[in-house]
């Protein structure tokens, strides 16, 4: 095959080439495939790590601009053109900082927590589909569920960090963060059920393949619910309890110094990126895009572009929003997102069956009806909120007049 054909399906072809090379050296097929997969896995794990170095710089620049300042700039020091190497400099700094441990910490647990946090963040990438075939580490049939189940382990990393620091603020911070994340796990799961329903599969490839019409167009309300819940899950403002700078200093990682803190920081950024990729797969059509069928490697480009947009949106949230109070945060999840998600689930289930029964199986026809149903629910919700607000306003007015009298 010529150069263009090789490049068109780059990763699969490289894998095949490596496989042939190794077979040529006389290794049995089992070892060949294992080694190829391990190399692939290493490349996959390194990907987000290097992406994060760029994204940390990107986030700080964007937030700087939102706050009407420059963000990291090149002032002649070794931070590279436009200070692109800022994150690298940060990493080097953290690697060489002294480990300051609180003397009464629980040694083993204290050290496990950051390792677990990073491991879980990296582990998610195994199921992300970067292209039509062969560009995914493993296509588990429980794809999305695997991602969600890993998050459960992340809860524990937080609890361990908070508890083992032997610091009441760290502990408190950990519990608040876990309460928040756990509360938003529910609307996230419920909203996630909608794409699974429409695609008939939990597998990530299955979800992408079912999106001739991206699900964000078909079911925008669950997409919105999922987006908000995801923002809380990754600890982005306005739902930030983990690092609540002005409230409890650095929350549950207050006693962690140097690279141990760096590990949590890294894990947080990787999580932001993975969440963006998962959202892209669930609602934005994953690797779909022009010319993907001819050149599968473009799948990587499309999914990365879309995920980058989502990440940018998350960064805008970070720069532009204040932190909400914990009771408001929890109220918003339990009293708004969860009921709304449940209602949406019921509505989509019924409408889609009705559409199937009426015989409208073309993707755009189905999408249109579902979109209308979503819009209807959205309008009803806004109307209800408006009425509730009016009632509260009236109650406030009544109280004011009562005092005057």
């Amino acid at each position, binding site marked *: 095959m010529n150069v263009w054909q090789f490049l068109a399906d780059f990763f699969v072809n490289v894998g095949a080439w490596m496989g042939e090379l190794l077979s040529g050296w006389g290794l049995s097929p089992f070892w060949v495939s294992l080694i190829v997969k391990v190399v692939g*896995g290493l490349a996959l794990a390194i990907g987000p790590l290097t992406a994060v170095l760029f994204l940390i710089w990107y986030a700080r620049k964007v937030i700087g601009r939102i706050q009407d300042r420059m963000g990291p700039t090149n002032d002649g020091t070794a931070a590279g053109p436009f200070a692109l190497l800022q994150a690298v400099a940060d990493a080097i700094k953290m690697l060489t900082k002294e480990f300051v441990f609180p003397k009464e910490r629980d040694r083993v647990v204290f050290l496990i927590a950051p390792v*677990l946090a*990073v*491991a879980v963040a990296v582990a998610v990438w195994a199921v992300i589909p970067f292209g039509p075939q062969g560009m995914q580490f493993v296509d588990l049939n429980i794809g999305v569920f695997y991602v969600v189940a890993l998050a459960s382990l992340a809860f524990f990393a937080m609890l361990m960090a908070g508890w083992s620091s032997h610091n009441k603020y760290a502990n408190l911070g950990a519990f608040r963060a876990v309460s928040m994340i756990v509360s938003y*796990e*529910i609307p996230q799961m419920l909203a996630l059920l909608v794409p699974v329903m429409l695609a*008939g599969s939990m597998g990530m490839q299955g979800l992408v393949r079912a999106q001739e019409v991206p699900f964000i167009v078909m079911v925008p309300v669950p997409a919105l619910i999922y987006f908000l819940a995801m923002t809380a899950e990754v600890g982005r403002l306005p739902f930030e309890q983990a690092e609540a700078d002005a409230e409890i*200093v650095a929350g549950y990682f207050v006693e962690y110094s140097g690279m141990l803190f760096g590990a949590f920081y890294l894990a947080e950024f990787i999580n932001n990126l993975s969440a963006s990729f998962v959202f892209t797969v669930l609602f934005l059509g994953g690797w779909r895009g022009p010319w993907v069928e001819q050149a599968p490697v473009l799948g990587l480009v499309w999914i990365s572009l879309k995920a980058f947009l989502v990440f940018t949106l998350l960064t805008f949230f970070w720069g532009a929003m204040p932190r909400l109070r*914990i009771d408001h945060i929890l109220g918003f999840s339990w009293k708004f997102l969860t009921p709304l998600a449940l*209602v949406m689930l019921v509505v989509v289930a019924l409408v889609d069956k009705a559409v199937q029964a009426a015989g409208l199986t073309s993707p755009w026809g189905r999408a249109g009806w579902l979109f209308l149903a979503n819009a209807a629910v959205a309008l009803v919700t806004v109307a209800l909120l408006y009425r509730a607000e009016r009632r509260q306003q009236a109650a406030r007015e009544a109280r004011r007049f009562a005092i005057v009298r």
Partner: protein
Amino acid sequence: MSQYALIGVYLIIALIFGVAPPLLAWFLSPKKPNPYKGEVYESGIKTFGPTWIRFKPQYYLFALAFLVFDVEAALLLPWAVAYLWLPLYAVIEAVIFILILVFGLVYVWRRGWLTWM
């Protein structure tokens, strides 16, 4: 199953990536222990009061409500996967399942047991 063996391999890789930075930092960082550095951080003042304070029951409440809805969502997952092949009555049955729990949520909310502070 070979899929999960691969996942196992990947998890080991992920774990290595988790251990590597702190390990590297351990070798590269200076070690100058000092008793003051070991003090618990409380904005510069010496800690007072017991370090394990008692937490509000609300944390437990929310974890509990979470667990109930967690199980509900998990039970709905296989139904969601099978959805496209299910007849209407099967969908209605799941809707009943959901509505029972919506009722529970609304009830608990109205009674005011879902407040934080």
